[in-house]
């Protein structure tokens, strides 16, 4: 009896190895363990045995059954696995396929991106981010900045005037030509000490071409307090240069006249592209002129209600539009205000 059982087990284990599909596995399983299966037959035989022997054989029979079930289970699991793999294989997707339908990615304007980047730098240094009217009084745009009426510096900027407010002295309205227009507003509102940047849109009445736009963006900065120095201005310029183009980017400052600063400076950055060797971007000079500024003129401080004998400070006005064009190598300034999605979707 024991022999027969061992034989059954051996037989199953041999046959099961030859099974190649789930159906034959089931058939084989049935053949051995089914209601009319071989093991069942053997078990029936067992009933005829004496108690003691039956117990021993019964134990063996259970072991045989268990062994068969384990082997069966193992093969079954294998078939499951194969089928799952097959199914997943057939559910292949093209992972490179872009998401279909509506919510394709939009874009944020490159000027906004560069502006926000600089805002983050300056707020990390404790600067406020301010804003001001774009349609501005002649007073804040010029007079308060030490550019009285009939000052030749007014010729430096072609100005849009607003109809009905273009003639009467003291009641002229302009489209601000520079974000510096917010300097005196900020001083009056917040007093000193002050650290602020004013990013924003400016306007000049000049014909547009690939390099000129009547609408452009600047980022003004203003730092006033006790003991603020020219060296501090250099430090902040250097921090910006390091942030934008990597630590150790060289800067150099040169004199330049702006009525609202004294001394006035023209700040240049070592060309990030050629590292000062001279290239197309820097017009072979090795330098990029992007940081005009200077120490705030005492007259401007006075207009802001600040005593220039006690306080000093500096201001700067980065050309945001220019920084954006340099960063992305944009060759035509007109793209920026065009609203053309073919341009905008690249950012």
């Amino acid at each position, binding site marked *: 009896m024991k022999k027969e059982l061992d034989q059954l087990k051996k037989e199953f284990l041999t046959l099961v190895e030859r099974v190649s599909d789930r159906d034959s596995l089931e058939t084989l399983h049935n053949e051995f363990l089914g209601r009319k299966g071989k093991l069942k037959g053997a078990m029936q035989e067992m009933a005829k045995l004496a108690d003691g022997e039956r117990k021993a054989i019964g134990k063996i029979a259970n072991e045989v059954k268990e062994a068969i079930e384990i082997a069966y289970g193992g093969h079954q699991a294998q078939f499951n696995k194969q089928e799952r793999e097959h199914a997943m294989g057939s559910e292949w997707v093209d992972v490179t396929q872009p998401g279909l339908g*509506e*919510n394709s990615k*939009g*874009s*944020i*304007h490159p000027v*906004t991106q560069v502006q*926000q980047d600089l805002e983050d730098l300056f707020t990390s240094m*404790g600067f406020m*981010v301010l*804003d001001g*009217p774009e*349609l501005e009084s002649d*007073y*804040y745009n010029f*007079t308060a900045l030490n550019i009285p009426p*009939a000052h030749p*510096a007014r010729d*430096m900027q072609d100005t*849009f005037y*607003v*109809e009905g*407010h273009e003639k009467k002295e*003291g*009641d002229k*309205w302009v*489209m601000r030509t520079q974000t510096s227009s917010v300097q005196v507003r900020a001083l*009056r509102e*917040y007093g000193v000490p002050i*650290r602020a940047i004013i990013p924003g*849109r400016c*306007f000049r*009445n000049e014909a*547009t071409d690939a390099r000129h736009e009547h609408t452009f963006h600047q980022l003004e900065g203003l*730092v006033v307090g006790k*003991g*603020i*120095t*020219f*060296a501090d201005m*250099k*430090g*902040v310029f250097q921090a910006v240069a390091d942030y934008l183009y990597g630590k150790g980017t060289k800067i150099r400052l*040169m*004199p*330049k*006249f702006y009525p609202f600063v*004294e*001394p006035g*400076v023209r700040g240049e950055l070592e060309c990030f592209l050629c590292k000062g060797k001279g290239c197309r971007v820097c017009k072979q000079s090795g330098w990029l002129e992007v940081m005009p500024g200077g120490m705030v003129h*005492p007259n401007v401080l*006075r*207009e802001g*209600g600040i005593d220039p004998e006690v306080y000093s400070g500096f201001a700067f006005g980065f050309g945001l539009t220019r920084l954006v064009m340099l960063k992305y190598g944009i060759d035509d300034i007109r793209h*920026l*205000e065009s*609203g*053309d*999605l073919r341009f*905008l979707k690249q950012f």
Partner: protein
Amino acid sequence: MLISKKWLSEFVKTPKGLSDEDIAETVTLSTVEVESIADQAGALENIVVGVIESVEQHTNADRLKVCKVDVGGRVTQIVCGGSNVKKGMKVVAALPGARVLWHGEGDHVELKKTKIRGEESEGMICAGIEIGLTHTNEGEHEILDLGDVKAKAGDALAGALGLDDVIFDIEHKSLTNRPDLMGHYGMAREIAALTRSPLKEYKPAKITAGKGITLTVDVEDQELCPRYMAVALEGIVVGPSPEWLRNRLNACGVRSINNVVDVTNFVMLELGQPMHGFDADVLGGDKVKIVVRKAKAKEKITALDAQTYVLDSDMFLITDGSKPMAIAGVMGGEDSGVSETTTRIVFESANFSATSVRKTSTKLSLRSESSARFEKALDPNLCELALARAVELMKELSPTARVCSAVIDEKKKLDVAKTLSFPSELVNARLGSSISTGEMEDILTRLGFGVSNKKEIFTIVIPTWRATKDISIKEDVIEEIARIYGYDNIPSTLPTFVIEPPAVDRVAVLARTARKVLAYGSGASEVYLYAFVSPETLEALGESLDDYLKLANPLASDRPYLVSSLIPNLLEAAEQNQRSFDTVNLFQCERVFRKDDEGEEPGGAGSGSAGGEGKNKLPGQPRMLTGLYTKKGVEEPFWKAKEMMEKVMVVMGYSVELRPSEKPSPWQHSGRQAQIIVSGEVVGLVSEIDPEKTTALGLDNRVAVFEINLELLVRQDEPLAVYKAVSVHPSVKRDLAFVAADRTEFADIETAIEKAVDLLGSIELFDVYRGKGVEEGHKSMAIHLSFRDDDRTLESSDVDVEMEKIRKVLTEQFGATMRS
């Protein structure tokens, strides 16, 4: 402004080993920007004088000739298109390696030996403009004839023409506050200070008065003309200037006219003092009476540019006592100018008010080398030097010339030297530097300042040539020290500040969030569009132009109005983009300009207070967030615009309510528009555009927009989530479907149900259906309802009672019929 190195070197001897580039860099780093250095000889390398030996017609080209040219020691063949080329002519022969401008345009091109239509050509025979000479006289399609030039074949052209100078081009705007640099002597003085080089004293021979003409000058307003010097000369022979003088003028971009005019221009270029030469016989002959006065209204003058100008009573004139002879400081009159027959002249060397000259030249749109200098405020002391120099030079050029009048000098009392006084320590305090007082004194002395230092208090005497406007406060003097010391040598530090969190502009914060949500959550692209809009677009949208602010001087007349909403230009942008994209999904976040709203105060002089009391406030300029959506085949873009708006609002933390406006604007689709309401206040709108208007604007598909006034939005309470304990008792869910009139608003139903039912947890509309099975003019709506009591688990019977209330509300208040 062009500065000649040769001219400079007459006054300053720069240290050996200092190259032109070094000089340019020193000047740029410490004074004014040198834009370029032009080496005249370098630019004319490989260009020689050629003599044409023969000219033959090119067999393959009607307009070309094949020339044999003697270029010194050898004869070569050059193909030439010049219509005036002929045998024996002395010409400009640019040989291979020379850099020329084709037809005077574009970038320089390096010549190579080539074949032109089959004929060998070794270089090019040039017109003046092709080698950068601007004042040559050849006609169109002609080449430059060097017949007058003493040179033989093969001579380098630079040498032959005396073009061996180096020209520095100074950026014009950087001279705004430095009138003293608008002449060679001033520039030489600056370079001498920068390079510690000796400067030659400017010392023309003193004028000795003569007899022959009685010259008088009457200045009516000495504020407008602080100084007027004049002298008459006779025995003048008007003629061409010598070559050295012509070359000087040429180097500075000034055309030679005749010896008298050239003298005045020469002196101006040398000293920066504009001068004028009148024909004395036109002014009055033996008795010349110059009256400097204001013009009469409508008085006319024909100036040297042959234009007639109508003057007004603010303008200042030089007259002969009755008729205008010159517009003071701007331009001389045509009639009183020096002509070929002139023999007696009056030289004017005057100082005019900067403001007056500037106003006059602006009003007349007449700019000249003279006005450009006067309007920067010149040193009145220059008049005397200039006049002496002019007389000296005139005598040299026209040896028979002699002074024939007294030297007139009408002047108001010239200011005594201006001084400034401040503690020397202020310099380092402002600069953050540690410059010794000795070095400060040295720098100022080199620049011509007088310096005395008593107990560390500086008293500074400003040199007259810097005192007119440039240097007036101590900060100006600090700048002088800083720039000469070198901005590069000042250390770099960071300001120290009290730690304080910066004030936050909530609008900017919201705008930043909104941009991200729209771009990366809704697939919209941010656009920047002009603040200006065309009347056509506004009118197409049914807007009244009277409601808009307008530019007084728009760049182009097509966009004179200021936008009061971002929508019109967004529609234009959508129209542009629909050609390339089926879906156009845009947004802009920017200010608009509201004519009738009050904005910021305009400010006023001095006080430091808000100022500007009683003045018109500036117009309101709220920052708007505006989005637009249109897609081919989408007939109800309203939903997408609404979804975009809601997404933004959710992320910004505001809950919104939409209600149709009772008075939509003419451009709105009256049936598909709503106001955005936050905490009871209208902060914006969502709307489709009236399809008729979009068609008029050339848009192919339906368009929807939303607009949020961020300034109004931030006035609402800062959004804050409200926590309620999570109920431990389960909620019971029921659905309900009913039919109601088409125009029934869901928000009303929601409010009514919320009001009527106590145990309502939430209500959600999940289906709206019109069409088959639903009566015309009606719609079927289906809602999910959930009920809850925080204190107990609800029984089915409790919910039945609530459902009955809801049905009652729906039937009685909304005339709805239940579907289930």
